[in-house]
């Protein structure tokens, strides 16, 4: 049996047009281990962010800080492909503070006159493990933030936080709410 239905575009050959989906507010919570000094980040959707200390195997995690932030996924408006960004805890603007940092170097190799490097922050802030934000997630984030730029000289580059040289010395600006209680 034959059909006259047009061949539908597959997700693989689609030139994606991303939109934000599943946008939700919560708290970026940063915790540190008193023993090994590693740091981790989580995204809490609880009304009040958790601040209690707790033990997890050899780690003793203590609350270091929290910021109101948002989390989202991306979906293609053409092919409906959905990219879950579960491993992205927050996004940070690189302030180009350290020429030896991998994030700094990533922004130096671009041909665009005004390249702005943003860092996708994963849960493993100190990078005790080798995992970071997924390649698929990074690709979608780059396409999403680049798709509506009208200035041909401007480029948004999103890189994984595993490129960051030092979490202690980093002067990046996290896209999270600060000073909400100082407004009035």
């Amino acid at each position, binding site marked *: 049996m034959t059909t006259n239905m047009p061949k539908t575009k597959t997700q693989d050959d689609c030139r994606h047009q991303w939109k934000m989906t599943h946008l939700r507010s919560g708290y970026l919570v940063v915790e540190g281990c008193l023993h090994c000094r590693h740091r981790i980040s989580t995204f809490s959707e609880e009304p009040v962010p958790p601040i209690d200390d707790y033990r997890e195997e050899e780690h003793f995690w203590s609350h270091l800080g929290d910021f109101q*932030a948002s989390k*989202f996924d991306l979906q293609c408006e053409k092919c409906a492909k959905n990219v879950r960004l579960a491993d992205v805890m927050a996004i940070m603007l690189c302030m180009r503070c350290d020429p030896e940092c991998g994030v700094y170097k990533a922004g130096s190799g671009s041909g665009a006159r005004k390249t*702005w490097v943003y860092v996708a922050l994963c849960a493993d802030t100190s990078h005790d493990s080798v995992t970071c934000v997924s390649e698929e997630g990074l690709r979608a984030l780059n396409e999403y933030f680049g798709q509506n730029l009208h200035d041909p000289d401007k480029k948004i580059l999103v890189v994984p936080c595993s490129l960051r040289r030092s979490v202690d010395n980093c002067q990046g*600006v996290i896209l999270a*709410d600060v000073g*909400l209680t100082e407004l009035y």
Partner: protein
Amino acid sequence: MNVSEMAKKIGLASFNSSGDKEIRGVYISDMVSDIIGIGEGNLLVTLQTHKNLIATANLVDVAAIVFSRGKTPAEDVIALANKAGIQLLGFEGDTWALAKKLYEIGIR
């Protein structure tokens, strides 16, 4: 309408001189976690004057930022906005008064 024409009609103060983009909409918010989801070309009206706001505004490519209630950004915030090519403007009245003025001059 472009940013310069809007600023002149309403009589906004200017904290820097960074481009003259077209205004394609208006968004009013004081939360970075909210602004990250808006489309490009919006005039952002806010009370927040910190760097995190500029970092987010740059990512979503705003037309300009207006600080209402006489809020004034610090020098390092203005410097970051200059790098990003974001015009920073100021309005002495409250956000509702500014919203009315924007509507009156045809910005919807």
